[in-house]
């Protein structure tokens, strides 16, 4: 999130699109209600009518997988009606930048497409630069190749008539949403967008969010109170686990993972983002300090200038290798791995095409599964269709402590890092995850010390000294993450103190400042609110440097005056020569006519309405989901996203416009369960409330298929089948798409064969192995299925 949960109350218009906030983030809904009590309008756009829709001022339906068409129409509406914030667009975005004459867009493809590689040459999307290497700009926004004019041209094609044909949303409904949301383009109005997996789990997931970013930037809604593009993330610490880089493509705090071509520290540092523009702060220029400090945290005194601080001990991926989730399980299915750690996860139910994942686990020699309860992953070898006698995989099931049985911090979507105290001991032999991995690594180190083996250096040199009296001390790890001045042994105050010469350590630069000589900042519980905006700067701690609303320098004018004085996030005190309010995005004086631009993490210093870094184009364009109900994309000859990676053969199959799978299917969650139900399916109260998997469908579809409410039905895709209880409901309605009737069905994915006994199996047995080309997040929100009475 750019903003945070309490900040919803500062919005004038709240759009929840790509999510179901009332059911999936229930307690945050109080801040939407607080906004509405003060006169805000709440809009819900979703294929299903949910409890969120029931509370919305405006509810509008769209077909799953057509969000870009919907939002493309909104961009056109905002531009056609002059609703955009001209000052903001000119000064704080790249709308004024002029593109080179190589940029083009034609019939669904941007310039530079190579059909054999299914990828783009992004150099065709470059800016024209002046003699100093600074992008050329046209402050009048009139140059035919300036970004602003190209946005206009691109989205001029998204007429109401076309958008309606694609989305199935009536034109009146579109206009109602466009007009209401477009009203926040004034400096004294704020609009916020709340999204979740309803946007990310598509083959155009990243571009769904990009489309909204364009809208928010046109309306001047980024960096302000009540604004932002806000991901309502699904897990209590998925923000923290992402920050700490439990992902193939990053190491802690969003540094790219080293690749084979970057053999030395100097090679890696040569890729540090650069700018020729003296007005761009280009904060990432500090990256070498963060990497060396991270290496010092990992390898301690063994990391020296002479050995590149142990850079060669970090594993290197191949230059273009993508080791993300779907590829990981594809490789496992093909037998690449002998060992597998499924730590605090249940991929046998949570992964798209879960049947393939379950089969893949039979190819392993050994697997470790750490969890609070038994799961379909740990017990995969005795699941449906498995013959344990034929499965060679050795399985270790390690019992871990639950959240109230250990101490440590978690980070919520608003980047608040909150400390949890330990209330009780874990039952039986269960141990906190941290203690398990700490003890395990001690044994691995001892083994390599004794027996040597393949390249033992990183293992033997790893600094692993976080214990007190033989037991992991979580505070010692928290301090390591914050970082030390190694010349004094004192904790650093924040990341501005980090150096690239080996005299500082820091496990994660974004968390530097969280545990200082002043104490454990995440454990703070003081409820002061000096701005009155609900920032609560002394409650817990927030990355970066306790800044509660990021990009906040975009909330003020060139002199540092708040553009909306009633909700001032920061303001410049000219006499004292300092900022007051939230922690500003850099303490420099206001931008003026020669100061720093506000978007300090971007090399150009401004926000990107034009996004040349993405795999599938600089502007979001509508493509149909991989599996869709219509033969032709209304917008172009490219039916599906032209750069997605297609997995074919074996357990991977797809069916588009196939009469065997005529209905659009989507997966989702209910309030009473969480993710695969790996915790909640074991709790009696919750199982009583939501005991089994169900399939929702409209009355029209139920009539068509002779299905009654409560009947047992079979939902089937080309990959798998799930038995469910039918819920025939008014909440779902057929869509009229391109002149034909399209039905939608949906299932929650919380269940699994293991427990409760009659709860049913995972809806992910149905979903396809296909991902967004930027993130590789699977398309679990729009695929084709059949449903019939059992």
């Amino acid at each position, binding site marked *: 999130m750019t903003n945070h949960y309490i900040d919803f109350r500062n919005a004038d218009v709240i759009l929840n699109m790509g999510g179901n906030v009332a059911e999936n983030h229930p307690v945050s809904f109080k801040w939407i209600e607080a906004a509405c009590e003060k006169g805000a309008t709440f809009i819900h756009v979703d294929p299903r009518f949910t409890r969120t829709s029931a509370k919305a001022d405006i509810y509008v339906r769209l077909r799953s997988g057509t969000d870009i068409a919907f939002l493309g129409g909104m961009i056109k509406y905002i531009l056609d009606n002059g609703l955009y914030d001209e000052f903001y667009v000119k000064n704080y975005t790249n709308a004024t930048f002029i593109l080179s004459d190589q940029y083009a867009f034609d019939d669904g493809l941007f310039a530079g497409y190579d059909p054999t590689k299914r990828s783009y040459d992004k150099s065709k999307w470059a800016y024209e630069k002046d003699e100093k290497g600074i992008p050329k700009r046209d402050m009048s926004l009139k140059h035919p190749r300036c970004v602003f004019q190209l946005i206009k041209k691109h989205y001029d094609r998204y007429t109401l008539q076309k958008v309606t044909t694609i989305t199935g949303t009536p034109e009146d409904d579109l206009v109602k949403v466009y007009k209401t949301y477009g009203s926040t383009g004034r400096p004294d109005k704020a609009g916020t967008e709340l999204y979740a997996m309803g946007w990310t789990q598509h083959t155009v997931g990243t571009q769904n969010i990009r489309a909204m970013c364009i809208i928010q930037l046109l309306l001047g809604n980024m960096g302000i109170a009540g604004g932002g593009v806000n991901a309502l993330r699904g897990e209590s610490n998925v923000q923290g686990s992402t920050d700490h*880089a439990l992902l193939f493509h990053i190491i802690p705090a969003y540094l790219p993972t080293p690749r084979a071509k970057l053999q030395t520290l100097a090679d890696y540092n040569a890729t540090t983002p650069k700018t020729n523009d003296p007005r761009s702060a280009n904060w990432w220029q500090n990256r070498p300090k963060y990497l060396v400090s991270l290496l010092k*945290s990992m390898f301690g005194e063994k990391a020296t200038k002479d050995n590149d601080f142990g850079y*060669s001990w970090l594993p290197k991926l191949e230059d273009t290798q993508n080791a993300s989730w779907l590829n990981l399980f594809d490789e496992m299915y093909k037998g690449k791995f002998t060992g597998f750690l499924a730590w605090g996860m249940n991929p046998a139910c949570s992964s798209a095409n879960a049947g393939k994942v379950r089969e893949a686990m039979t190819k392993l*020699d050994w697997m470790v599964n750490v969890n609070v*309860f038994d799961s379909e992953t740990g017990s995969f070898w005795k699941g449906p269709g498995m013959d344990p006698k034929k499965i060679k995989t050795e399985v270790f099931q390690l019992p871990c402590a639950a*959240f109230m049985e250990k101490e440590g911090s978690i980070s919520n979507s608003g980047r608040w890092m909150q400390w949890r105290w330990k209330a009780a001991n874990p039952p039986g*032999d269960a141990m906190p995850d941290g203690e398990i991995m700490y003890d395990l690594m001690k044994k691995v180190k001892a083994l390599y010390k004794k027996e040597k083996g393949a390249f033992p250096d990183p293992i033997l040199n790893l600094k692993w000294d976080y214990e007190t009296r033989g037991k992991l001390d979580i505070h010692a790890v928290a301090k390591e993450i914050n970082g030390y001045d190694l010349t004094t042994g004192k904790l650093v105050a924040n990341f501005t103190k980090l150096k690239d010469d080996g005299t500082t350590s820091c496990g994660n630069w974004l968390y530097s400042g969280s545990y200082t000589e002043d104490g454990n900042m995440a454990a703070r519980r003081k409820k002061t609110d000096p701005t009155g905006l609900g920032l609560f700067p002394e409650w817990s701690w927030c990355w970066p440097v306790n800044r509660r609303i990021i990009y906040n320098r975009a909330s003020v004018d060139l002199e540092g005056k708040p553009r909306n004085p009633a909700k001032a996030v920061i303001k410049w005190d000219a006499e004292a020569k300092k900022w007051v309010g939230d922690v500003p995005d850099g303490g420099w004086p206001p931008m003026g006519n020669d100061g720093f631009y506000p978007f300090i993490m971007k090399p150009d210093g401004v926000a990107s309405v034009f996004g040349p870094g993405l795999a599938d184009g600089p502007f979001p364009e509508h493509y149909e989901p991989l599996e869709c109900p219509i033969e032709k994309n209304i917008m172009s000859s490219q039916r599906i996203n032209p750069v997605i990676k297609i997995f074919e053969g074996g357990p991977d199959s797809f069916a588009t416009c196939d009469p065997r799978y005529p209905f659009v299917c989507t997966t989702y969650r209910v309030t009473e369960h969480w993710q695969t139900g790996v915790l909640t399916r074991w709790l009696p109260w919750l199982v009583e409330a939501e005991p089994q998997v169900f399939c929702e469908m409209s009355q029209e579809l139920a009539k068509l298929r002779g299905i009654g409410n409560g009947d047992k039905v079979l939902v089937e895709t080309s990959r798998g089948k799930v038995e469910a209880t039918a819920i025939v409901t008014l909440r779902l309605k057929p869509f009229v798409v391109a002149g034909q009737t399209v039905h939608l069905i949906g299932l929650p994915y919380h269940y699994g064969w293991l427990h409760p006994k009659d709860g049913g199996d995972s809806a992910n047995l149905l979903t396809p192995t296909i991902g967004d080309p930027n993130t590789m997040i699977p398309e679990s929100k729009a695929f084709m299925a059949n449903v019939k009475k059992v």
Partner: protein
Amino acid sequence: MKAFNRRDFLKVSGVTVAGLTLSQLGFDLTPVQAYAAELRTKGAKETPTICCYCSVSCGILVSTDKKGKVINSEGDPDHPISEGALCAKGASSYQIAVNDARLRKVRYRAPNSTQWKEVSWDWALDKIAANIKKSRDKSFVVKNNDGKVVNRTDGIASVGSAAMDNEECWLYQTFLRSLGLVYIEHQARI
């Protein structure tokens, strides 16, 4: 006013289940409710924590008795985001701590076996460490096909976990990367 003890309160509740409404019993329920509220946390220790489910991160107060057993969990009224509120899941979190189905023992399933066997931590961690070493040593790539040094373990993959604390996540990625793993993924990708 009649004084109630816990047994009386349960009797009243029992009658409710049998089909009578409380108002039909004809007495003031205020002291019953007050007593019940007091009972839950009497002599208990309250520990603040944060909910384990979605990313709103509501405050929860966990009450433990003198033996350290969890006896209650409820919303933390001081928490600025949740202000004491919890959803159905958060409100049930007490049942995570007090639950017969919790994994209490380390379990091992041998190749081609049809059942679990309970084992000790030491035995399991020794064997996992040996497995890690065997898989790593067998699959370790010092140089790739282009002769570039990659120092990578290709034969082990890991998924997990957003369910861990920050400190554990950092420690876990450090552990995995020092082993040379590159197939490192978790919930954020799906």
